[in-house]
């Protein structure tokens, strides 16, 4: 570690814990976070450090005629003012397409795009100097309509090759099939923000070898390292990264934010430099969920069995591509939902506009179509006078059946069971008007109703989400496991680059190591780039992938240990196991202590874990033998009370059944489902970044609302474990599905309460209320 390693408050992530797989040991960072003692990346500090700030474009589309930094440079206390001319390497980065400049050079493509950087000895000095940078813009007409951007060749081109990022069709069966019962609808979804509480932040420390050490909050250290090194013009080993306390992520930390900027300032000034966005800048400084417009038509026979689904999906990617190609891939492949559909024609467009860039967010590309296909299933149920759960069960996909791309699900897919189970969960009590607590009513603390105008509704939602990266990606993970005797007891250390973003992968790594090595004392090394890739803490994949890597590395360590025991004791290797710090023979019982075999030796093994190979989609018809690694499913039932005169909603219950394959940490699983459900509830009734003419109109937590405790009901959570034979321990990704199925369930319940044909999320009071009564 660097000599100038930043000061940290107590953050004993490497404290040993009790509990193996299937138990729920307390997470090592939990108490610190609850007590407010946990050090987040925004708390980093180094002696003699400078503060960096970013100048951002005030226009969604403009040509830069000139940038004059002389006024800023003359400000006392300013150490550096940098523009695109100072980017040492390639002035381009990106997760998939490398299309985004580190600092804008000739044009700006969205309001908030980074144009220049300032480092000063005080943050306010840096901010004031920023105002003295004179940028001469020629303002251009922005492209703001995603659907037009897909088709209208007369619009300005946001990028030289045009405005289409990806077009993907899926054709299955007879694309012109007809059916007895046809329902159709157009659905739109607003731009959701990840709304993590810890703003983008990091501390860069220049190193004596000409490189830089960056301490930061991210979801993927190695992805950041590769992109940052390229932009800095440095070899990767000179751009070392260490994960610092992450205050939430949800996809919003997959793309670069401060990384290259803060390193440029540190390398230029030769001093440690810290950057922390404020809340408003954070809204401009990270990508959001893609808004979508979706046209759907479902055909079914008289029994409610789906005959066809035809859909057109438009995703607004904003100014840079980020994860737009993946959103189109997920959106189309999962666009019919967890249902068997013989005839499919889905087309997806992901486009460039001059709106804020959109990219990864929990439920990537699967949240949008779920709103539409679940509304369609409800419409179908109504048209057929069927129960909405029954119509879903009739069409539910199951093991051995194929999704729209032709991929056969060769693992449990208990969609019908989840629906049956969530329907069977106890309902919340009926509202009785006698015990009046306004906090239990729509409007809550605001005292808008004492029961007047309040109607109850119930709705269901079920979803499918792919787990891990797809379409041929090899997003492997690496784990280094070390076993040694410390103080007379066996101790293991796990070292991975898997980003702990709050989801609990730190605990999962400890649990797996405990179970695999029979050792209680397991520490997790700080996550950094001194070990191989772990891939991103995204796509509900870390327990699967890094869990798999830790398991594989533990197995290698165990093999070396037991080889030695087998030789020394003349036992068959296959008879030996590890438990409670001892080595046990199936035939002769306890043989010896692990520490006695180890002596002074350290056994260390590093292993990669790769998931099953996946394959690209056919460009013409979207077919693929295995486009995705694994699929996960959840089902929600929402009960809402709606004040139909004011359009205010109180979600009374939001209950969930989910298959998690194997609950490595059952409490953490429930926590993920609670959190995901709350995030989906937020999208259903309040969360939307309002964009007008390319500008964010509500870049604050005053006006970008996320659910409070009065908006979030108690949740009954029913977890089942139908193991996937292809995954480590049978695990199935947990984090994303509940974000996806909760939204359509809540909206369906609001429809049921109001009789309104609600087609946009978030549902706002204006959508519910009848004006002019």
């Amino acid at each position, binding site marked *: 570690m660097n000599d100038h390693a930043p000061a940290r408050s107590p953050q004993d992530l490497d404290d040993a814990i009790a509990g193996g797989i299937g138990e729920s040991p307390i997470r090592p960072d939990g108490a610190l976070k609850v007590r407010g003692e946990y050090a987040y990346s925004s708390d980093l500090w180094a002696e003699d450090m400078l503060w960096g700030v970013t100048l951002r474009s005030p226009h969604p589309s403009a040509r830069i005629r000139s940038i004059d930094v002389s006024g800023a440079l003359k400000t006392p206390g300013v150490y550096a003012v940098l523009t695109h001319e100072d980017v040492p390497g390639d002035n381009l980065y990106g997760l998939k397409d490398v299309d985004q400049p580190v600092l804008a050079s000739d044009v700006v493509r969205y309001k908030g795009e980074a144009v220049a950087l300032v480092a000063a000895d005080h943050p306010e000095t840096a901010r004031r100097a920023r105002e003295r940078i004179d940028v001469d813009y020629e303002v251009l007409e922005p492209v703001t309509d995603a659907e037009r951007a897909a088709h209208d060749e007369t619009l300005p081109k946001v990028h030289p090759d045009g405005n289409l990022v990806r077009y993907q069709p899926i054709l299955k069966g007879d694309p012109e099939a007809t059916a007895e019962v046809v329902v159709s609808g157009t659905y739109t979804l607003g731009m959701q923000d990840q709304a993590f509480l810890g703003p983008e932040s990091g501390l860069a420390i220049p190193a004596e070898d000409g490189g830089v050490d960056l301490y930061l909050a991210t979801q993927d250290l190695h992805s950041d390292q590769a992109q940052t090194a390229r932009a800095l013009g440095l070899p990767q080993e000179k751009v070392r990264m260490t994960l610092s306390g992450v205050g939430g992520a949800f996809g919003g930390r997959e793309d670069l934010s401060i990384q290259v900027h803060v390193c440029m300032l540190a390398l230029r000034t030769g001093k440690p430099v810290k950057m922390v966005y404020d809340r408003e800048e954070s809204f401009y400084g990270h990508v959001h969920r893609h808004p979508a417009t979706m046209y759907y038509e479902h055909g079914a026979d008289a029994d409610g069995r789906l005959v066809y689904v035809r859909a057109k999906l438009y995703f607004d990617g904003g100014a840079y591509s980020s994860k737009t190609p993946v959103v189109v891939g997920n959106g189309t492949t999962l666009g019919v939902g967890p249902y068997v559909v013989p005839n499919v024609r889905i087309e997806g467009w992901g486009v460039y506009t001059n709106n804020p860039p959109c990219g990864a967010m929990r439920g990537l590309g699967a949240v949008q179509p779920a709103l539409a296909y679940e509304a369609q299933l409800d419409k179908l149920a109504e048209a057929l006078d069927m129960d909405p759960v029954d119509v879903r069960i009739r069409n539910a996909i199951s093991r051995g059946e194929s999704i729209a791309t032709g991929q056969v699900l060769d693992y449990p897919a208990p969609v019908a069971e989840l629906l049956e189970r969530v329907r069977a969960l106890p309902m919340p009590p009926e509202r009785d008007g006698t015990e009046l607590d306004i906090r239990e009513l729509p409007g809550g603390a605001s*005292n808008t109703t004492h029961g007047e105008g309040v109607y109850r509704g119930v709705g269901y939602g079920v979803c499918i989400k792919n787990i891990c990266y797809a379409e041929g990606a090899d997003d492997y993970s690496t784990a280094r496991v070390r076993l040694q005797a410390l103080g007379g007891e066996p101790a293991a250390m796990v070292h991975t680059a898997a980003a702990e973003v709050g989801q609990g992968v730190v605990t999962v790594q400890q649990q797996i190591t405990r179970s695999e090595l029979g050792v209680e004392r397991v520490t997790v090394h700080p996550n950094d780039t001194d070990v191989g890739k772990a891939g991103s803490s995204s796509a509900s994949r870390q327990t699967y992938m890094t869990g798999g890597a830790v398991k594989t590395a533990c197995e290698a360590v165990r093999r070396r240990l037991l080889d030695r025991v087998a030789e020394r004791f003349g036992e068959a290797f296959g008879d030996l196991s590890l438990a409670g710090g001892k080595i046990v023979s199936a035939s002769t019982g306890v043989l010896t202590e692990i520490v006695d075999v180890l002596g002074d030796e350290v056994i260390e093994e590093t292993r990669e874990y790769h998931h099953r190979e996946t394959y690209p989609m056919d460009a013409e018809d979207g077919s693929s033998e295995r486009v995705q690694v694994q699929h996960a499913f959840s089902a929600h039932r929402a009960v809402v009370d709606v004040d139909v005169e004011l359009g205010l909603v109180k979600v009374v219950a939001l209950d969930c059944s989910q298959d998690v394959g194997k609950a490595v940490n059952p409490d953490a699983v429930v926590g993920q489902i609670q959190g995901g459900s709350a995030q989906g509830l937020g999208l259903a009734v309040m969360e939307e970044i309002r964009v007008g003419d390319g500008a964010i109109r509500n870049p604050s937590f005053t006006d970008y*609302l996320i659910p409070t405790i009065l908006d979030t009901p108690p949740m009954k959570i029913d977890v089942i474990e139908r193991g996937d034979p292809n995954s480590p321990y049978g695990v199935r990704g947990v984090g994303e599905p509940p974000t996806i199925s909760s939204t359509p369930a809540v909206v369906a319940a609001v429809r049921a309460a109001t009789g309104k044909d609600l087609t946009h999320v978030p549902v706002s009071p204006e959508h519910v209320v009848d004006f002019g009564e």
Partner: protein
Amino acid sequence: MDFLRPTHWRDALDAKAHHPDATPIAGGTDVMVEINFGRRRPSTLLDLTGVPELTDWSLDDGRLRIGAGVPYARLIDELGDRLPGLAIASRTVGSPQIRNRGTLGGNLASASPAGDGHPPLLASDAEVEVQSLRGTRTVPVGEFFTGVKRHVLADDELIAAVHVAPATGAQQFSKIGTRNAMVIAVCTFAVALHPEQQRVGTGLGSAAPTPRPATEAAEFLAAELTDTDQWNRPRPLPESVVRRFGELVAATTAPIDDVRGTANYRTHAMAVMARRTLGWVWNEHRTGRQQCA
């Protein structure tokens, strides 16, 4: 930036007189947000939290004098029985932490059209006591606001207190927000019955550039009640009266479309809140039982 922290009211007035551009700060729940967002860079902050006179309230000659530095939490706990409308409004402000810090004087001084404390003060005919080294004046709260985030204070003046009579009849307050707690108002409505004067007080928030009463609605209702002798012998109100009251309140609005809601919705919601809160105060008037909240 200069930071002034007087410990006596007289020193505070002196400071304001000598630093007319100083920004007064009490709970800081508005000022600090603006500073942190870079929207305001005061040359001087005048911290009033060290002035003990501001955090007292008293009852003199049948009228409450509430120091400008009394926070919402104390309005609820200590004055909730005498000012129920203001207490209901105070409960809708932010979170417990904000209610512990934020003050009634600060709410007035910010002069936001969405200030939650304003409508109940209007409905109760409150007055704002303003002081400077030049002297003291009282301003009816309806005349205090001159525009969005603007008020009648001169550069050397500070808000000393609010004067308001304890409730003699039922009071209610209702606020629209698009989540169930911790939300800035889309619009608000307050109503207060003054049976001893046979009068009705109203206040509308976030429905016009400044908080305003619904005078025509209040006079209509008071006349109805007087004409039918309902003040003394209350009966259930005819639906037509409730509806007309709502219509007249809605007609008072001059709302805008913004990121929190549309003008149409605000006007609509104001009528609904007016009808409902009238129902609640009237039930209380008839039965003597407060209608929750």
